[in-house]
Structures are given as C-alpha cells and as structure tokens.
C-alpha cells in the first residue's frame, strides 16, 4: 500500500478520535456541536478537490486528441468517477450540515446561500450524469460531457462566489458572520481540523481511483 493511502487512513482515524475526545472551546449555542467542524467542513474541501481533479481530467481529455492521435477515453472515465465520488462527499457534507443546522439554527433546511449553492452544485452534476447516460456513442459522450464539465464547473464557482454577496446568510463566513478561523478556532482545534481536511481528501482520492480502476477493468472485459 502506498504511503499517501496510509497517511490518509492515519489522519482520518486521528481526526475521528481527537475530534470526539479532545478538548474544545465552550461557546454559547454551539456547545459540543462545534466538534462537527472536524467532520462537516472537510467534506466540502474534499468535494472541491475531487471536482477540481475531475475538471483537470476533462481538460486533459479534450486536449488529448489534438495532434491527430487517438483520444484517451480513460481520462473522461476518470473525470466521471471523481465527480461521482465528489457528489457522495457533497451529500455527506449536506447531511452533517443539516444535523448541525438543526442543533444551532433550529431547522434542517433554510434558504441559505451555502445550502442553495450546494443544491445547485448537486443539480449541475446530476445534469452531467444525465447528459452522459443519454449518449450512446463512447467518444461523443466523452467529448460532450467533458465540454459540459468545464463549462459547468466555471459557472458553479462563479455562482458560489457571488451568491453570498447577493443575499444574507446565517452561515459562518458569510453575511457578516465571522468564519471560524477569525477567532473561534483556537490552535488546539486547528491541530485536528487541518489533518482532518487533508486526510479526507486523500481518502476521497483513493475511493475515486479505486472506482476508476474498476471501471477500466469492466471496460476491458
């Protein structure tokens, strides 16, 4: 087993143990739910990292047939698998966030920019999967869905970027609410938070690459 996979396991195991057992600041309303920071926030970092790689693979696919050589369909397959796993992470982030919202805001779902941003991200990538499944021809599918992936990713980032500036928000880091990093996240929490983010990205990467290898094996069979 490669070193980065071991690192991923160790970091996630450490963040789970330390996340539940270590000392955390006692803040009003948040109370013990502040521990969710170690589980909820890394999901989003992982989602963006995986989607970023999906974008890179799509661009590589589009560039691959340029010099008259054959296009590399595996790159597109990789883009799809990374996007799929990223959607799993976004669902996990959504569920952990909903539990947290119930505890602190009193409701599972509000019309909050962060929540709407997530909903739109899910819609965009579900559309990407629908687009893939509605094309029979392999090469055409790869080409069209790569093009859509690049187009959609950029507009999604724009959307996530401008949305909080257009509406009010309860979510930390938006609409005048301080993000945790401003003053709440003390150095003890950083020691768990950053390893958790890094560990989950590695685990997500690992799951995606296993799925990708499985798909290639299926294709060859």
């Amino acid at each position, binding site marked *: 087993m490669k070193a980065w996979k071991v690192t991923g396991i160790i970091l996630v195991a450490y963040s789970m143990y330390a996340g539940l057992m270590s000392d955390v600041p006692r803040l009003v309303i948040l109370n013990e739910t502040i521990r969710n920071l170690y589980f909820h926030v890394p999901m989003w970092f992982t989602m963006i990292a995986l989607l970023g790689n999906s974008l890179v693979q799509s661009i590589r696919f589009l560039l691959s047939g340029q010099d008259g050589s054959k296009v590399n369909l595996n790159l597109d397959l990789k883009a799809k698998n990374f996007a799929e796993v990223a959607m799993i992470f976004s669902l996990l982030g959504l569920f952990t966030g909903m539990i947290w919202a119930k505890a602190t805001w009193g409701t599972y779902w509000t019309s909050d920019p962060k929540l709407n941003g997530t909903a739109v991200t899910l819609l965009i990538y579900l559309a990407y999967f629908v*687009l893939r499944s*509605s094309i029979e021809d392999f090469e*055409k599918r790869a080409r*069209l869905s790569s093009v*859509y992936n690049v187009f959609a990713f950029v*507009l999604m980032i*724009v959307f996530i970027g401008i949305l909080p500036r257009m509406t009010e928000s309860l979510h930390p880091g938006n609409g005048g609410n301080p993000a945790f990093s401003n003053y709440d996240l003390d150095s003890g929490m950083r020691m768990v938070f950053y390893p958790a983010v890094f560990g989950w990205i590695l685990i997500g990467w690992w799951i995606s690459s296993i799925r990708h290898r499985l798909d290639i094996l299926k294709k060859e069979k």
Partner: protein
Amino acid sequence: MLRVKAIKTIFLWDWELEYRRSSGWFVSLLFSAIVTFLTSLLIKHPSPNTWLALLWMILIFSALQIANKTFSANEGQYHYINQLVHPLELLIGKSLSSSFSTLLISLLSFLLFSFWIGFPKSSDYSMPLIPLIVSISLGSVALSFTLCFTSAIAAKVDGNASLMSILSIPLLLPTLLVSLRASKLALLGEHIEQIYPLWIGELSLCGLSLALGAILFPYLWRS
C-alpha cells in the same frame, strides 16, 4: 482569424430563416403572451417580490423556448455551413442572433406584463422605467448567451428539449441572481449609482459565457 463578414452572414441567415418560417419567433412571442395572460388571470396586485419572480420566470422560459431552436437546423445544413465558416464564427453569429431575438421577446413580454399585470401596487415612490428596462435587457441577453452554448450541447444529443432545461437551468442561476437584484433595485426606485455595478456584473457574465463558449465550442463542434 475571425471574419466579421462570416458572423454577419450567419446572423442575417438566421434572421431570414426565422422570418420565413412563421413558426419561428412568432411561436415564442405567442408563448410568452399566453403565459403572461394566464398569470394575469391568476394573480392580482402582486407585491414587488412576487412581481419580479413572475416576470423572471416568464423571461427565463421564453429564453429557453428560443434557445431550443438555436441549433435546430438539420445535420446536412451544418455539414454545409461547417465548410464555409469557422466554428467560432458560427457560435458568435448564433449567439448574437439568439440574444437579439431573446432581447426582443423579453421587451415585448415586459410590455405585455406591465400592461396586463401592471406594476406593484404598493409603489408610493416614483420609479423611472429606464433602469428597469436596462436591467431586464442586459439580463436576458446574458441568459441567452449561456443558453446558446448549452443548446449547442443539447443539439449534439439530438435536440432533446427537456435535456436542454436540465443542463441549462442550474447554469443560469448566477445570471438570474444578478439580474433579479438589479431589477429589484430598479423597481424600488434606487439611484442609478446603486444599480450600475450590477449591470457591469450582467455584462461580465455575458463575457464569461462567450469566452468559455469560444474556448470549448471547437471541441464540441468537430465530429
């Protein structure tokens, strides 16, 4: 090298075809007229928020209606066109012609909308119309630029209309949010200094869609 003449030809060719087929944008106009009339029967004296929501819903579906037809010519025609123009020239010409028709339809729907539904009743302020019209125009042009590209994708998948909506509606949200904000400020009679940053936002979203389209379209179009 982009040739202005080629873009112009594509643009005029599109308009001539639209004009000859009476089913062209007359259908879109009738569509938005029917929807507006239906809305006017269902709601009386909406609040500013409801008013804007209804207006933009109508505009978005009219824009979708037009975009559905943007790349709907048959394979053979494109085989011929591809011999003559570069894909980029095709995209720009098509974007311009569809944004032009979206703009016309939007303004006409806005006219019908204000005629049948009127403006929000609670208005005890004087509202200049020009900022509202500019916000709506820029917004609908920005919508149609994004839609033009997704309609090219959908056309390659044999122009499935519902696929087109699934692909494009989530992507329209940034434009829609900015336009909604701009038209809301205009409706509330804010000073123009408050609104024009949002107009710049609408324009830059146009530019972003066009730039992305320009980069990606050649990959999409080669077959």
